[in-house]
């Protein structure tokens, strides 16, 4: 039994130490907002925060998260950066199919928390690991700038 701190609540889970957080969240805790995309940290759909830092939950074992604060898409709106990012996503209608967007928002919220006025280059660096097959990239870029209050030059 491992005790996790998920969105501010203690959760005891009975899984092997090497079980990725992704499957622990989705299959054991029934928190399905965090998505499975590739299983190898290649697509970013499973991004969560561990102590505020973005992490790929599909390659992060539960044993690495004991005693740390896990934040998922279900609660990121309670953080200042997450709330701004979600509002900007709504204002610009970023999502299409929406499947990758939990991960996109978690990466963007972590970026905004660490870098309140991100440059295009900062956005590229923070977001390049989050794939989107619907091609929402132009709106993701614009929404991050909107949330940050940075002028979007359309570049």
């Amino acid at each position, binding site marked *: 039994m491992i005790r996790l701190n998920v969105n501010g609540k203690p959760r005891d889970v009975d*899984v*092997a130490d090497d*079980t*990725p957080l992704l*499957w*622990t969240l*989705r*299959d*054991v805790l*029934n*928190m*399905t*907002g*965090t*998505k*499975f*995309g*590739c*299983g*190898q940290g*290649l*697509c970013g759909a499973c991004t969560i925060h561990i102590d505020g830092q973005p992490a790929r939950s599909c390659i992060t074992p539960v044993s690495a998260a004991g005693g740390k604060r896990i934040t*998922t*898409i*279900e609660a990121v*709106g309670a953080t200042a950066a997450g709330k701004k990012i*979600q509002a900007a*996503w*709504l204002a610009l*209608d*970023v*999502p*299409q*199919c*929406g*499947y*990758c*967007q*939990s991960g996109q*928002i978690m990466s963007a919220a972590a970026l905004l928390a660490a870098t309140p006025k991100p440059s295009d280059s900062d*956005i*590229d*660096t923070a*977001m*390049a*690991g*989050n*794939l*989107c*097959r*619907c*091609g*929402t*990239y*132009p*709106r*993701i*870029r614009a929404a991050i700038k909107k949330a940050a209050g940075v002028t979007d030059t*359309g*570049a």
Partner: protein
Amino acid sequence: MRRRDFLKVSASAAVGGGLLLGFGLPVRSEVRDTLTTNAPFAPNAFLRIDRAGKVIFVSPLIEMGQGTYTSLPMLIAEELEVDVDKVAVEHAPADDKVYANPLIGIQMTGASTAIRAMYVPLRRAGATARVMLVAAAAQRWKVDPATCRAENGVVVHAATGRRLGYGALVDAAAKLPVPEKVALKEPAAFRLVGKAHRRLDTSGKVNGSARFGIDTRLPGMKFAVLAQSPVFGGKLASIDEAKAKAVPGVTQVVRLDDAVAVVANHTWAAKQGLAAAAPQWDAGPNAKVSMTDIVGQLARAAEKPGAVARNDGDAARAIAGAAKRIDAVYEQPFLAHATMEPMNCTVHLTTDGCDIWVGTQVPGLTQAAVMKLTGLKREQVRIHNHLLGGGFGRRLEFDGTVRAVQIAQHVRGPVQVIWPREEDIQHDMYRPYYYDRVTAGVDAQGKAVAWSHRITGASIVARYIPASIKNGVDPDAVESSANLPYGFPDIHVDWVRQEPPSGIQTTWWRGVGVTRGTFVVESFVDELAASAKHDPLAYRIAFLDKNPRARAVLQLAAERSGWGKPLPAGQGRGIALCTGFGSFIGQVVQVSVGKDGAVSPVHVWCAVDCGLQVNPDTIRAQMESGIIFGLSAALFGEITIKDGRVEQTNFGDYRVLRISEAPRIDVHLVNSTEAPGGIGEPGTSCVMPALTNAIFAATGRRIRKLPVGDQARAA
């Protein structure tokens, strides 16, 4: 149900009583301007209004990112006079008659048909309901219905100021006869349609509450991870079942003829169990199949004449007599769909029924496949559709559901079957490999006098909708080639069917025939312009005098791009035209090619004339989407086969565009009162040749085989 019987009153309806409206949808002749098929139309049931006035739209089409869960409610709300933001959308149950897509004839979301198919029927649905609600109010007030009007979910009698909400009127309205005819608004009177509207499905997609098929959770549900024979057509030889079962959490191993699934309490345990099981396979007859075999078969097949799709004049003779002959071969690879939501399906099979939780573009076909597999009756197979985490044609197939039911036949209780990404890539049903030979004869000024095009490849239509094969021609395979937009004097187009080795399945992929044909036509026209040393835009325009909408979008895209203005060294602009799905798209791509041959699309200008617009912001979004999707494919997309198995495994070797690689995109919409066209796919179709034409402009290197890969490096 006869058309007169549409109206049903059901006190026990799921919506808590009230008005349950089924609608007599218009007969073909009423929408002939947007129809391309004559499939039969059946009575339908799209709309429910409860006693609280809540409007529920039962959507016959599924949301997969394309915005139909906003644009379709807009059509209803426009005529029903309600607040579209308060319309609740429900996925329709499986029913190939009641919920048939009128352009296709079965319940299908695809082929960029949503607005073309539903533009009139859903407005009629809304208008019919409104007329009945107004009549119910007028009856109660004992006034002439003509003195009443509907606004924002309320019927108003202006003279006396009386008002009744729709919810208070549903019981009375349900007893009234359904009007045979209702007047629809003129587009000039639209208050909603044609104005950008925020999507109705965004909030769930930003807070994690949106439910995709993979998010199904049921009491007692098990999780199964699947492995299929890596060699197409191979069989399961052996597995170490004891080792699999030794993994904590693993409950069961299911052996199928050509696949194995490990069932567990959670997906990770199932995955670990599958690794421990170390399945061994008999490769079977395809053990040595490689791309050389597959492409060699296509090239040989392309030597012989095929079924004639178009024959204007005598192209062969005109080419023989022309001042110059130009030949080219184009090749387009197998492509995977790689939807972000990997293939998955949840099944609960019992002795008296089967419940399926899945995201599908074809609920009716999926239901029929499960009936065939299980022997259950239609009413025993319940398809619970979900939001799709990407479709792109992958979910026009039901192979994943069939697999899941095969596994569920061995499992007690509900089971969710997940394909690891590697299975999703290696056992996709692929966009076919195409091999195109094109020849033109040009006059002394380089102007085309004749055009001859032979298309060779697999036929999806022959497997999926064989009745659509006419005179031996697959209409999808020759799309945008047989009906190319340019007015060349003599044209010959033929098609040769050549399937890949058995076991390699092919299917629809965003843009299907239009994507395939547009790449070839727009590349070769560009070659002719280059050969004539003409401007690629001017060369095209000269053959578009009978196609004003096509001409206009090309000119608009060119104008916005600064066409003709000088660019820095290593950069180039390419242009392309796409006419398909009832829409006209012109695009210019500006590309930068580094000294190392690295290709970076810098900027894309996209002009769209899709006729009357329903939600302009969705049109923009679909163009952005199609462009990024097409660039991924054109730059990187390629499934290759070696020793009978797919070489690619995951996003590391099946690359898709990243945000850091995405160009700036400017979309320009052309105002039009023409019939609405499709917008989900043509953005993808257009960008591929625009990109490769830009690479030619930048480097002088003509890309005749996709993907681009490192071909610009050899320049």
